[in-house]
């Protein structure tokens, strides 16, 4: 894992090195940077030394979080710019992945369980169409339909300046708190479910819903009282459309995969046995067939996560959502090399994280791996 990260850093470095014109010249030619700073930068990055020394310095700088100074946002350091943008991407992308995985898995198991029929046909066709639809065009259609024609959601961007005029807190502060409460809520919900499963075999699982909803109400109430609830709501409003678009284009992959995987597990002996035990149909489907069908789907979650990372670059650019993807794109357009390298590094780290998460999840889900 560390090795892969190292390879990504190396790869980006040498790609930059290999491109026509060197890294240093970009710094030198940039009119925004005062000459004395240029010398400073030259020294810090060792731009006057041989390539291999530059490479070592680059490695050291990367390891210590020094990614250089952005040209486009001079004099902000790259790490600063990214620290602002990464959470926005994470929010967009994690929400969309979670929702699309849930929907895809749910639909997939449903259509595999009841083969044939209009429902299966309709979901498969629409899923495949959405899956192969040209993402930017589809995203633009979504904007046109829901923001322009229907006016339900704002046309893009991260927030509405009119709402924020006169606000005494920064968008990042609000957003950071939103991220925190989202994480807190998820942890809370998981804990409730885990505890209920562990201690209350006799407690109906329906009890989980009111408790979790109660948690949601508490968090919502806290936001209302805090006075920045309106601002948070504004961000949420801007999030709905990109998340929905990203979800729509990526749920079909999970759905089709779940369906295929389900069709395999349905024929397994333990599903037959579960039915013979007299378990209710739903329990056979969810606890046995779908539970096992989930394993290969989770393995491929890596691919869908990476698909979603790529997708979020496109979505961010179409929706002008100022996350890592849009940053990357703007940096590329303005030839802001340090920012390009920083952004791709973070996207790489993100996809590695996806790998790690999936590995951990898999170990948790499959006892055969757990005890090896």
């Amino acid at each position, binding site marked *: 894992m560390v090795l892969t990260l190292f390879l990504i850093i190396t790869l980006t470095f040498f790609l930059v090195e290999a491109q026509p014109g060197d890294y240093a010249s970009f710094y030198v030619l940039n009119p925004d940077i005062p000459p004395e700073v240029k010398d400073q930068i030259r020294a810090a990055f060792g731009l006057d030394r041989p390539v291999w020394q530059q490479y070592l310095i680059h490695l050291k700088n990367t390891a210590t979080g020094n990614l250089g100074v952005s040209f486009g946002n001079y004099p902000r350091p790259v790490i600063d710019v990214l620290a602002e943008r990464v959470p926005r991407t994470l929010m967009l992308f994690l929400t969309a992945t979670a929702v699309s995985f849930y929907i895809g898995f749910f639909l997939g198991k449903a259509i595999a369980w009841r083969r044939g029929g209009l429902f299966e046909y309709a979901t498969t066709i629409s899923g495949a169409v959405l899956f192969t639809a040209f993402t930017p065009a589809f995203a633009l259609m979504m904007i046109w339909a829901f923001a322009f024609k229907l006016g339900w959601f704002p046309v893009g961007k991260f927030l509405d300046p009119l709402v924020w005029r006169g606000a005494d807190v920064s968008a990042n502060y609000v957003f950071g708190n939103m991220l925190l409460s989202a994480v807190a809520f998820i942890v809370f919900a998981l804990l409730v479910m885990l505890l209920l499963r562990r201690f209350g075999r006799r407690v109906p699982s329906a009890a989980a819903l009111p408790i979790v909803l109660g948690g949601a109400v508490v968090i919502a109430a806290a936001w209302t009282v805090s006075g920045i609830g309106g601002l948070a709501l504004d961000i949420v409003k801007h999030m709905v459309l990109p998340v929905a678009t990203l979800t729509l284009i990526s749920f079909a992959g999970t759905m089709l995969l779940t369906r295929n995987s389900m069709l395999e597990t349905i024929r397994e002996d333990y599903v037959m046995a579960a039915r013979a035990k*007299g378990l*209710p149909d739903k*329990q056979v489907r969810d606890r046995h067939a779908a539970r*096992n069908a989930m394993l290969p789907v989770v393995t491929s979650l890596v691919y869908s996560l990476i698909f979603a990372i790529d997708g979020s670059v496109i979505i961010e650019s179409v929706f002008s959502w100022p996350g890592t993807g849009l940053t990357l794109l703007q940096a590329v357009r303005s030839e802001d090399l340090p920012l390009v390298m920083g952004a791709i590094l973070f996207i790489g780290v993100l996809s590695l994280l996806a790998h790690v998460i999936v590995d951990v999840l898999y170990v948790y889900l499959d006892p055969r791996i757990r*005890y090896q």
Partner: protein
Amino acid sequence: MTDRRDPLLKVDGLSLSYQTRQGEVQAVRDVSFELARGSALGLVGESGCGKTSVANCLMRLLPDNARLSAGRVLLDGQDILLLTEEEMRLLRWRRISMVFQAAMNVLDPVYRVGQQIIEAIETHGVESTDSGARERVARLLRMVGLDPQLMERYPHEFSGGMRQRAVIAMALSCDPDLMIADEPTTALDVIVQDRILRELKAIQQQLAMSLIYISHDIAVVAEVTDVVGVMYAGRLVEMGETADVFRAPAHPYTAALMSSFPSVSGERHLLTSLPGEPPNLSDPPPGCPFHPRCAYATDVCRVEYPPEVRAGSHRAACWHPLDATLVPQS
């Protein structure tokens, strides 16, 4: 109240077919038998003769392309083929449980073994408390010769024999009246197979539970069962007390089947294998389905299905029964 002397299970004229691309496959044709409380019935025959289909009919676990064309399955006088799916669900495992063929995959790999047994116990409300259910699982595991501690383990940590024992424990978990064992020991080595068989037999007698034992292995069936039915091409061709049938088989197929296995009683005789293949069930031959492979076949066998011949409880469907004491009933 049902009379204790009534048979537990009465299968009457059961016929089942599968719709396939190659046409209709008649997997079970006009099968009838009775099973008394606490006794063990064996079903033998080559693979593909319809044994497993009969078992699946009794559990009403049939694939979508199966069609029950005729017959009744009476459990304590009640036709289970007429029950709703929900009524049937509550009856499964509680009244009739099953030990599956190829038991290696019967246990779900992602759950602990104990959990899977408890799942059945909870569904049918056999025990009202958690600790009760766990004690029951421990008792069941001991009964099949497993350490109760193993309930916390996952199936992949079990050997083949252990898994089969766990599956039997699971089948016993709700005190069923009838247990169907479909080739439960085929995948195991001979020594383990023999031990499990003995235990199964002992448990069956101890619990006074009825048992249907399905196998292609005549020796095993002879060891375990009281009554035996021989199936060929979806038909029940011979049936009777196990001792009677194997001492004096009436149907040439039974005799052929017996001579292709080493003798149960240790007598030496030449093992012969049966020539030919079982018939294609989507296009069965006219008359007796066994005639193309039968040494005794005459013209009538090729045209008309044989009548039932009988002597007491021993019956067969053959024009030329090898045991002449069996005669047609008027």
